[in-house]
């Protein structure tokens, strides 16, 4: 019986700006083989490997994967992206956030691949690779060589523990690895092939090539030359496969990093606090009469609005060492939507709106205003959370640009002023006349509905359009 194809590319065309990097490339990776991808610098090795991971838009062709027995499109030139399960990926840069610990990173990669936690096996592997004493250290505290070990492990361990044949894509894995880890890597590559997994390794390293069953050389004109060879290297004994289990790991990852290093909460909270204090100072000169309710409503909502439009920390976390690309490859089609939801300001809007209200509306105002305000203020906090999802999607769009740091992305956020004004109008109505459920223009519920719809529309545009 011939070996099953685990990953294939047909007629792949990938452009980088005006330059065609891959022209009509056909490639396949079968179960139980280690394939070395060779070629001179600039021939497109990394682009091919990353395209197979679904990271690059294609001008032509498609990439298919046999995922748990089903033929699934990883990506094609039509913009289609299938729902694929996690696999093994080690990019040329680490693709990890420095705030993760070693154990968290490798365990996280296993969870993304749909595996149940197997702490015993993981601890054993981490110790074997000389990282036992670093298991609970943040990755940013490790030397370059140790970080590379973690990056390689987070690609090969999830596949090694997978009972179904899976795929590992490694881009220059031995670069930066010390001699003893290289030896371990070669043993692992052979062992993965023995278990029926398919491994593609882009490399210049002659030692790594000795572990391959086949080499594919890519020329500068994207012609592939395949050569079968025999590897006599010894394989390592891999641990037993783990059971399958579904995890929502991106959510856990975001929350874990924020708890450890709360740059999102602080980054949003500080400008909101300054806005709150300024709003309070401004409000002291405003008479608490009904003709000024629109101004007071705007001042009450401004600090929470600011928490929503500030650049979310997830943008910085995804940009670090191409961590975002690793997650994009793992989460496939749904990545952008999930990133925008993970970039939302969840904690701050509710308390900030209530604090603004208590600070800005003084005792006399509280007596004069309609008591419905207190009852319905939470609704505005939830609208701000919605607005924050759209803001985060807009930030993600900007972050796709090659030099995102050189762009004044905040200008794009000004589009969110429109739903903000609708919210102000709704709050003004409630302050003056109380809550009304009448669906007519100018009534609070209609203003809230318009604000909500605008936000949803903006979010959908920012998430869906760039993927097509």
């Amino acid at each position, binding site marked *: 019986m011939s070996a099953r194809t685990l990953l294939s590319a047909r007629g792949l065309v990938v452009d980088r700006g005006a330059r065609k990097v891959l022209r009509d490339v056909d490639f396949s990776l079968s179960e139980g083989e280690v394939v070395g991808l060779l070629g001179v610098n600039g021939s497109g090795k990394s682009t091919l490997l990353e395209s197979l991971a679904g990271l690059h838009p294609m001008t032509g062709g498609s990439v298919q994967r046999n995922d748990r027995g089903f033929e699934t499109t990883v990506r094609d030139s039509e913009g289609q992206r299938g729902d694929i399960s996690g696999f093994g990926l080690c990019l040329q840069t680490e693709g990890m956030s*420095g*705030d993760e610990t070693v154990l968290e990173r490798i365990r996280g990669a296993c969870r993304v691949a749909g595996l149940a936690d197997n702490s015993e096996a993981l601890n054993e592997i981490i110790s074997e690779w*000389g*990282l036992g*004493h*670093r298991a609970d*250290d*943040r990755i*940013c*505290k490790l*030397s370059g*060589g*140790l970080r590379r070990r973690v990056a390689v492990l987070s690609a090969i361990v999830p596949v090694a523990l997978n009972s179904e044949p899976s795929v590992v894509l490694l881009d220059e894995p031995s670069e930066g690895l*010390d001699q*003893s880890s290289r030896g371990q890597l070669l043993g692992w590559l052979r062992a993965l092939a023995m278990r029926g997994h398919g491994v593609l390794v882009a490399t210049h390293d002659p030692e790594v090539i000795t572990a391959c069953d086949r080499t594919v050389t890519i020329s500068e004109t994207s012609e592939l030359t395949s050569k079968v060879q025999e590897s006599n290297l010894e394989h390592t004994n891999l641990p037993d496969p783990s059971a399958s289990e579904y995890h929502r790991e991106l959510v856990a990852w975001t929350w874990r990093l924020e708890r450890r*290093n*709360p*740059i999102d909460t*602080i980054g949003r909270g*500080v400008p909101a606090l300054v806005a709150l*204090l*300024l709003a*309070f*100072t401004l409000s*002291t000169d405003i008479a608490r009469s009904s003709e000024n309710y629109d101004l007071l409503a705007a001042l009450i909502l401004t600090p929470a609005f600011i928490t929503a439009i500030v650049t979310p920390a997830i943008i910085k976390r995804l940009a670090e060492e191409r961590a975002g690309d690793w997650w994009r490859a793992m989460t496939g089609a749904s990545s952008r939507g999930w990133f925008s939801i993970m970039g939302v300001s969840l904690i701050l809007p509710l308390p900030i709106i209530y604090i603004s209200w208590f*600070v800005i509306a*003084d005792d006399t105002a509280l007596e004069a205003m309609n008591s419905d305000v207190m009852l319905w203020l939470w609704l505005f906090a939830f609208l701000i959370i919605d607005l924050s999802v759209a803001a985060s999607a807009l930030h993600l769009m900007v972050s796709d640009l090659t030099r995102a740091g050189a762009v004044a992305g905040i200008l794009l956020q000004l589009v969110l002023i429109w739903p903000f004004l609708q919210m102000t109008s709704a709050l003004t109505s409630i302050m003056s006349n109380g809550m009304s459920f009448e669906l007519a223009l100018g009534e609070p519920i209609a203003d809230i509905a318009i604000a909500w719809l605008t936000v949803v529309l903006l979010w959908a545009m920012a998430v869906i359009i760039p993927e097509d």
Partner: protein
Amino acid sequence: MNFRDSGYALTYLGLAGIVFVAILGLEYAPGLKPCTGGGCWGAPEAYRILYLHVPFAWCSFLSFSILFYGSLMWYLKRSEDAWVYFQSGSDLGVIFGLGVITSGPIWASAEWGRPWDWGDMRLNSFALLTAVALFLVYSRQSQPDTQQNRDTLSAVGLFGFALVPITAGATTWWDTTHPEVLIVESGETLGMSPEVRSFLLISFGLMCILFTGLLILSNKRYRLAAEVSSRKNELDQEAIS
């Protein structure tokens, strides 16, 4: 018991002391008459906050002095011990600074009817000091421990300390609503009785005991952390070779 172990005793004693101060401060210490020679107080009982608020403020100045010492010594000697003081100073600065900038606005909103005064340099510079300390704590944890990062962070520590004299002198240089420098100024103008002053000094004394205990323990923690890190580096080398 050696000096480093005395940190435990001083911390427990100091904690018991400030719990004692809290009970006395809230229940038995002299409060204020609603109106005294200096004027009327809007919320005389909130004045009790001062018995912890002021010692907290002084301790945060001490923390920043330690941070300054650590930063300066790091620059001059590049010694591991200086870095230990730098780390302890920034941690303690956050704890005592947060205590001051949260209790201050609570007192202010009761007394002045508003939590913050933008015209008050002392409030603003105190918030800035605490923000600098918080920045140092989070940055230290999130960055690789390299000499370049230590140099940058200790430069920020020196900058933080430059804010201290501005903060301390702020109420004298700028005409503000914040109470004058307590004790140093005449108690009469604030209606502070000698009993209040004595109680405040007792509170500060106990807070100093706690502060010393925490400093000794914090230094112990960072010395241990340095040992652990050095042992891990040895193991890294052994694993590579």
